[in-house]
């Protein structure tokens, strides 16, 4: 593997992580969406790079699908659904951990992912070495965003980041399982986003809030 290729791998991995931090460090929904869009564009480029390195043409299709669905369709859908929501629903004013503490926790999570990926017995391969920790970091950061945020909207963004991490993870370890499974996964996300958008809309109407702490009717006490 040439150094230039390795550099490209490293730089793209770094951009992916930075875009993920963009979600952790900002309060506004539009900022998250932009970070997610950036992440998805880079992810699609990464997918194409993996396709180039491994020489499997099906991966290019996955790259194209990523570009179209994740950086165009999903942000469009989410912007469209949330256009009528008031600004207070779209801002995370009161996460459980403050933004500063969140960034520290996230940094620890990234370190943990690098540590974990060294523990698991993988074959040494530059693509795996560079991207696997990044994908795990995305997964953990998505999980963290999901549990740390109060508004339902940011939970959706958390899910999207988890899903990007999963996609990268699957891609790196399997080199594109097979097209039909990947299309299935894409369809699942797309439908999931549409459904959660409908739910968000109904929630804002019925509860007059998107705070998930308000969802507490169903309990056993």
């Amino acid at each position, binding site marked *: 593997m040439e150094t230039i290729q390795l550099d490209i791998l490293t730089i793209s991995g770094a951009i992916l992580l930075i875009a993920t931090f963009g979600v952790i460090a900002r309060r506004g929904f539009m900022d998250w969406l932009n970070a997610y869009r950036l992440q998805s564009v880079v992810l699609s480029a990464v997918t194409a790079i993996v396709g180039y390195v491994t020489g499997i043409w099906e991966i290019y299709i996955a790259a194209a699908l990523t570009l179209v669905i994740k950086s165009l369709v999903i942000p469009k859908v989410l912007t469209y659904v949330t256009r009528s929501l008031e600004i207070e629903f779209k801002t995370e004013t009161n996460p459980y951990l403050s933004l500063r503490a969140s960034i520290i926790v996230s940094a620890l999570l990234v370190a943990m992912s690098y540590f974990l990926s060294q523990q*698991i*017995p993988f074959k040494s391969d530059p693509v795996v070495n560079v991207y696997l920790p990044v994908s795990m970091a995305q*997964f953990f950061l998505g999980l963290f965003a*999901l549990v740390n945020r109060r508004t339902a909207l940011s939970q959706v963004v958390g899910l999207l980041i988890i*899903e990007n991490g999963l996609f990268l993870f699957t891609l790196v370890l399997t080199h594109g399982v097979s097209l039909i*499974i990947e299309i299935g996964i894409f369809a699942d996300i797309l439908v999931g986003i549409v*459904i959660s958008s409908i739910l968000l809309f109904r929630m804002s109407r019925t509860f007059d809030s998107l705070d998930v702490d308000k969802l507490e009717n*169903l309990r056993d006490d």
Partner: protein
Amino acid sequence: MDSLLSNITILSLLLTPLVGGILVTIFRKKKIIEIVTISSASLILIQVFFILSTIIHEKTITAFGNAFYIDSFGAVILLPISIVGFVSVLYSKNYMGRQYDIGLVDDKHIVRYYQGLSIFLLSMLVVPITNNLGVMWVTVEATTLVSVLLIMLYFKENAIEAAWKYLIIATVGLSFALIGTVFFYYANITAGSSEDAMNWTGMVHNSKLFDPNLVKIAFVFILVGYGTKAGLAPMHTWLPDAHSEAPTPVSALLSGVLLNCALYGIIRFHIVSSGTLGHAFSDQLLIILAVVSIGIAAASIYFQKDMKRMLAYSSVEHMGLVSLGIGFGGMFGIYGAILQIINHAIAKPLMFFASGTVSQKYETKVMSKIKGIIKVMPVTGALFLIGGFALVGMPPFNIFLSEFLVLSSGFQSGQFLVTMIVIAFLVITFAVFLRHLIKMVFGNPVVEMKQDDMGKLAVIPMAILASLVIIFGFYIPDQLQTLVHNASNIINGGSII
């Protein structure tokens, strides 16, 4: 069976619900779409019986190359899907018709409901017949999405809350399952497999060569992932909400069938991991989750006020019992576990249907406000009682037999302490559940009500299930015995056929 015939069999099985869904979309008239859905569900039932009879004779069916693969274990899961699917559709006509009459749902909702039901059936039918574990993950995820749509049919606060929690928790949980699946795939590739490395048959074949450390991590991910969807504690938190807020026929499907599909995923990977590591590793994990599930279910049933939530927690308990049987292993345990899957799938929908009818009549799900069911609705009350007796494992009903097998396998395998703890939990559940049940069925209704069983079509599905509950308590047909026996051989010995 030659390959053309098996291709046609699989194709027509999958096309039936799909075409049903499309016809529902085209016609949109309440009367017509009810008939369409009922006939598509009965067609599925007939086709599944055909497939089952083939499996009994030939052990396996493969179709479209290696893409679809049904063995006895897959067939055992197919059977409840088709039976519960059929009775749920039958019950839907009356139940949704009543909701329609009182104005809870309109024509648009009805169309959406029957579309969702067809697609839900389709996605569940793919799970036990696909050989590709990636496709299995995609379809399990699809079942989540469709069932969320069905739960949020009503525009109510509780339904929205339940749907949201279910969507988030199940999706995050299943992402763990995908990671596990990818790990298994990776283990398979590094062990030298190149073609169809995602296929279950290939994985079992190669499992001896897998890297043991990788398989350990992978199985934990699978257990957390599919375990969330199967309602194993402590990942069960979405289950009582979703199962209690869904329309009753959907609750029956969620509880009686969908949980089995997720458990099916765990057991498939359990077979692969046993090939690499031996039984002990995954057995232990399954037993731990099972005991926690049964314990949490016992405590939650004790404090329960809501009828449908109580039934939902009882599902947690029964899923725990199934994984306990698998974990104890041995011929008895696994045979009992598989029988438990079928028995639970028959008894739980019966209870959900009865409680749905009761809550429509009494207009509440709170148990303390429901009294004297047997006086107001004699037939439903009696069936409710039968279902309840079966669920707590009272002889001579069907679940007694499978629970007995599971517990005796615990003693056989020398796990005395675990078995005694589980028996203690089961005794608590038994007493509390029966007390709730008897308080609801007997006594005098709080308000004077007209005696009425809410229509023939509400009673017939329950009667079908109740008669199965009673028959399977005394006698299991030979064909079914062969099927369950072969399935337990697959799980026990890891022999593919």
